[in-house]
């Protein structure tokens, strides 16, 4: 019997791989943060600049989730339900934010909205500040987390098919009523999946936000930028504490995702009752 042995070796390799790549950094982070004691972590996290950085990160993530949920759902709807010229190209270009380095994304926004960018003079004349301020950071965060909702909702829409929607139309429902009463309940699990992934990605964004923020501290600093600056300033405990806080939030989101996926995988009837 060679198979069980081969299986056991494979399982062992996977376990070691995951523990080293995922587990070890988190353990190191936790140990590093608490090396000066629990009190030091709490103190570092309750400092004004860390509280505002964390709050700013959550605000940016909220904006990204709100924008990408609405436009992602609309985009997924159009891309799966309509047939038009250029549809497949559009579908493929939804993944561009995954393919481009966030630093390059940030650079693109500078080239568009910076003082010497395409819209720079016009924005300046209108008195609107985008780059080196929060609007650009929000734009960058929205951009890098764009694909999740589109992808998850597209999959859910394809799986749900159009028969139920057609049936609802013939029964007298307007297209808006069909969306709220038939389509949305059918894609709810996929949408939730997309929202959770979007928020996790938005919280973790660093490169694009760093470039468009122009490095102006305190005024517009996210959690990840805080970690970067604290390390530079040799405030190790503050850096570890913030990193740990960000990791904890993301882990909570992934935990929620796990629960959603498990429910969706089990009895569909019960999931729908629970999600209702």
């Amino acid at each position, binding site marked *: 019997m060679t198979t069980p042995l081969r299986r056991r070796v494979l399982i062992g390799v996977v376990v070691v791989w995951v523990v080293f790549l995922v587990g070890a950094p988190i353990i190191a982070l936790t140990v590093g943060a608490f090396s000066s004691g629990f009190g030091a972590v709490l103190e570092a996290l309750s400092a004004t600049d860390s509280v505002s950085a964390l709050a700013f990160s959550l605000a940016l993530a909220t904006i990204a989730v709100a924008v990408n949920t609405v436009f992602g759902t609309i985009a997924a709807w159009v891309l799966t339900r309509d*047939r038009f010229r250029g549809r497949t190209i559009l579908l493929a270009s939804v993944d561009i934010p995954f393919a481009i380095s966030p630093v390059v994304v940030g650079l693109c926004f500078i080239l568009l909205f910076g003082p010497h960018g395409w819209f720079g003079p016009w924005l300046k004349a209108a008195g609107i500040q985008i780059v080196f301020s929060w609007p650009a950071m929000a734009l960058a965060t929205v951009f890098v987390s764009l694909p999740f909702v589109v992808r998850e909702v597209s999959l859910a829409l394809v799986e749900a*098919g159009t*028969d*139920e929607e*057609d*049936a*609802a*139309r*013939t*029964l*007298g*429902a*307007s297209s808006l*009523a069909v969306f709220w*009463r*038939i389509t949305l*309940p*059918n894609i709810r699990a996929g949408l939730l999946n997309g929202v959770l992934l979007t928020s996790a990605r938005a919280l973790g964004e660093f490169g694009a936000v760093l470039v468009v923020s122009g490095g102006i501290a305190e005024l517009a600093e996210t959690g990840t930028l805080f970690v970067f600056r604290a390390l530079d300033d040799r405030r190790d405990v503050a850096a570890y504490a913030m990193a740990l806080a960000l990791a904890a939030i993301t882990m909570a989101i992934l935990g929620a995702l796990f629960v959603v996926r498990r429910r969706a995988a089990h009895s*569909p*009837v019960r999931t*729908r009752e629970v999600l*209702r």
Partner: protein
Amino acid sequence: MSVIGRGLSKRFAKAARPAIHSVDFNAPSGSITTLLGPSGSGKTTVLRIVAGLEIADAGNVSIVGEDVTAVPPERRGVGMVFQSYALFKHMNVADNIAFGLSVRKEPKDAIKARVNELLELVQLDGLGDRWPSQLSGGQRQRVALARALAIRPRVLLLDEPFGALDARVRIELRDFLRRLHDETHLTTLMVTHDQDEALELSHHVVVMNEGRVEQAGAPHDIYDHPATPFVAAFVGGANVLRGHVTDGRAEVGSFSVDLPTGATEGAAATAFVRPHDVKIAPVPDEGTAARSVTNDAPEVALAKIERLVRVGGMVKVTLKLPSDESMTVEMPKSEIDALSLSEGDRVMVDLRQAKVFVEDYAI
């Protein structure tokens, strides 16, 4: 309450040929009309255009004399049943049936009463709080039917309503639908590829092929007087024998069949004969007698019984003709027993019931 389609055409994007091409049909008030055809014949496209779920490139649809071509589906007053049932998975049975009434914002009490009435009608009393996933295929389709009927539609549209069901449930539901129609006389337009279903259930049949109407008429008309070779072959599962016109007769395989005068010499001729329209008889006396019979009646040929399969009360006989073609014959078990025939026997085959089409050479 009739449904009339005039000159309906539709070509889907990127399709090589139109899904339907100037289709005319008439589904008379109070009767069941069936669009019958193989898959890809465009029958479902016609049904979806009637429902308003597809928009025709040309032509118009009228329901009860009102031109509904530009009316959106939610205001056409049609009830539609889909092959996939299309029940709302996240609603229980009662909510599914109530959907059309609740989007019309009817009072709650009235909705509840109507739902119970329909549950009773489709014999699912007490199952209102079940989820669609807890029902059998036949039950699901009855829920779909109840949901479509709840809105008191002017017309009932059925898209392959029995397609996803097993044979026994299919026949059960077919009888149920027939009884239901006898009570309600709701104008019904059904799509099916199953000719038994079409012939048994409907008052009118519209046979479609490759996006066009081949023939429309009463079921027995379609069956007894097929207007085109396609209808002859598709309805009734006929044997097909090909040949040519020679001396004003169709020479097909080992047979020579009478033709009306005026057939073009040499034109391609095709004979269609249904398995139970073929008459076979034992050879009277080996040799000369048989030959004289086939000479006197050229529609008769000698053949050998290759296979003899008993299916219930019927016997399916596969014959090998002298021209090496095969032919299927169906006859009651008692008949074959009376003739005491078995595999390997030689028989006389009578093709007088064949329907012959001669290719039109007119230019």
